């Protein structure tokens, strides 16, 4: 073993160019593979994070405009949801599918605190909306059942709305317990939530019952949100939506197949589409990764081929001095494995360093697109096991590819090998 290592070391030391070329091919292949997979993982993590702000089995419904005449009424009529729709939603018709139902009613109000004021949007909500939309509380509490029952005049402000009411540099949490004016009435701030970049920064939450009675909304509703279960694929969801729309449409004397009378935003189906996109990205990454690896393997085999060719004369000398074919093959392979392993390791480490650099630079930058915060890369990088596996595959495949010419060279009659230059 020590003899073999010494042989390898001598040969590597005296053939620096050949060693460096092989090493570069290997390092580069692994480096590219890891950076590529790492970036892909980062993209995918960002997909997951940007899409995770809603519970996936919720849908919200709001009124639209009819697109066709029906029951003697012309097209283009505005549909406003009302308490009757709430009854349909939570009624027997969909009892097997729909679980929790909450309604929202909103009103435009002028909000002011001390000398600051703006035109805002007050959302009358039920406590359950918190779970459905994954609202994150930062300070205080959210709307509770007692607020609803007693029609309390309390509000919960998203952080971004709160800062609009405060002087620069003041923390949003300082508003908790304070009274703000909304629509001419005083409301106590009971909580602050994390900013929702999906919406404008001038809305805030209040109890459903308060908004409905104080602002005289009557039976009118802004939107209905509900959770559901048992709809596992796209077809089931579409069938359910069709059935649901038909029921609500009829209640408003709109055609049952009128698609535009009612807007249904189903998080589940949009999640499904997201998942599909993620899967495609995943497969694409794997294919590109495999081809990169294949490129590396071809590079290594190619250099092995050249190395063996270049060393044919040396092989002839060794054979004349009594080297067996087995010892020749062993020497070639051992040398190739050592070089590939060492340089593969270097490439792997560099690739991981590059991934962490990406994380520290691009990974920390967020782009805001239409009030939505996107991070291009989230935690780019690959697991150590994946990196080691890829390196091992490259070493093994490169070696197997080199084995063929090495064995062939080892079997040539020594006189032929000696003639080679």
């Amino acid at each position: 073993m020590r003899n073999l290592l010494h042989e390898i070391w001598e040969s590597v030391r005296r053939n620096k160019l050949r060693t460096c070329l092989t090493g570069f091919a290997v390092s580069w292949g692994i480096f590219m593979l890891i950076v590529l997979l790492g970036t892909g993982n980062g993209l995918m993590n960002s997909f997951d994070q940007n899409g995770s702000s809603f519970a996936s089995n919720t849908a919200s419904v709001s009124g639209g405009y009819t697109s066709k005449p029906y029951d003697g009424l012309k097209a283009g009529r505005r549909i406003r949801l009302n308490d009757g729709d709430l009854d349909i939603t939570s009624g027997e018709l969909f009892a097997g599918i729909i679980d929790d139902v909450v309604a929202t009613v909103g009103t435009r109000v002028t909000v002011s605190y001390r000398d600051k004021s703006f035109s805002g949007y007050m959302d009358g909500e039920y406590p359950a909306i918190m779970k459905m939309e994954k609202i994150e509380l930062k300070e205080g509490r959210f709307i509770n059942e007692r607020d609803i029952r007693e029609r309390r005049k309390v509000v919960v402000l998203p952080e971004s709305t709160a800062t609009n009411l405060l002087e620069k540099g003041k923390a949003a949490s300082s508003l908790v317990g304070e009274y703000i004016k909304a629509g001419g009435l005083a409301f106590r701030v009971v909580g602050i939530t994390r900013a929702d970049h999906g919406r404008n920064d001038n809305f805030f939450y209040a109890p459903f019952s308060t908004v409905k009675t104080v602002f005289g909304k009557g039976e009118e509703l802004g939107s209905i949100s509900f959770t559901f279960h048992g709809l596992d694929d796209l077809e089931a969801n579409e069938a359910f939506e069709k059935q649901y729309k038909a029921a609500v449409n009829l209640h408003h004397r709109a055609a049952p197949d009128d698609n535009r009378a009612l807007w249904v935003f189903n998080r589940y189906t949009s999640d499904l589409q997201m998942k599909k996109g993620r899967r495609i990205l995943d497969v694409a990454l794997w294919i590109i990764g495999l081809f990169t690896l294949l490129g590396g393997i071809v590079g290594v085999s190619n250099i092995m081929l050249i190395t063996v060719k270049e060393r044919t004369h040396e092989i002839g000398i060794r054979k004349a001095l009594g080297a067996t074919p087995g010892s020749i093959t062993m020497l070639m392979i051992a040398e190739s494995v050592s070089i590939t392993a060492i340089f593969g390791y270097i490439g792997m480490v560099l690739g991981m360093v590059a991934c962490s650099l990406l994380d520290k630079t691009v990974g920390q930058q967020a782009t805001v697109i239409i009030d939505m915060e996107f991070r291009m890369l989230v935690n780019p990088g690959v697991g150590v096991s994946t990196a080691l596996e890829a390196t091992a595959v490259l070493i093994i495949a490169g070696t197997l590819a080199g084995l063929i010419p090495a064995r062939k060279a080892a079997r040539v009659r020594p006189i032929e090998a000696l003639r080679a230059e």
Partner: protein
Amino acid sequence: MLIELKGINKTYDNGQPLHVLKGIDLSIGAGEFVSIMGASGSGKSTLLNILGILDNYDTGEYYIDGHLIKGLSEKRAAAYRNSMIGFIFQSFNLIGFKTAVENVELPLFYQGVGRRRRRELAMQYLDKLGLAGWASHYPNEMSGGQKQRVAIARALITSPKIILADEPTGALDSSTSEEVMQLLGNLNREEGVTIIVVTHESGVANCTDKIIHIKDGVIGEIEDNSAHRASVFGAGSIMK
């Protein structure tokens, strides 16, 4: 007899068959110093390659010390070459990325001799050939004569029964050639090594005790040259 050849035939087939050796019968005894002489294309190198088990032959029989050398596996052939034969080539065939001493050690490496013992023996042989000071030099740092002496040390290190030299002076000037031939002669006389030299130079052949002339693939005259007076040009010096 150490070496026995009976009816050796060898045909190369590179598109067109070329009958190189046409029934060679030859015996060489232990301790002989023999040269095989012939013009280029006469088949002398092919004969040497067969003697050295570097190449195979088509028909006939070849015995070394009573062992039939025919249809051997590469592994067996390697073992025979390693233990019984030492090679000296025209172009030295030293491994460029190994130092003189490492080159000399190599046959022992394939015998499985330990590192320290290998180094010790190799140094001994280099010293014997007056190259102790050049042990850690690479072949490209040495003169032709020095390289050939390294090659001779390498051929001797396993104490083989036979030394095969293929045009050993072909790449050397006349004085160095003479030196090398004297060295081989001394080895033969003092240590009783059987030496077979292939050459086309009559001066080189004249240094040996027996000259086997080969022409068009058959053995011609076998000349006794113990008096070393064979060549018109040969006596006294090697002409280049």
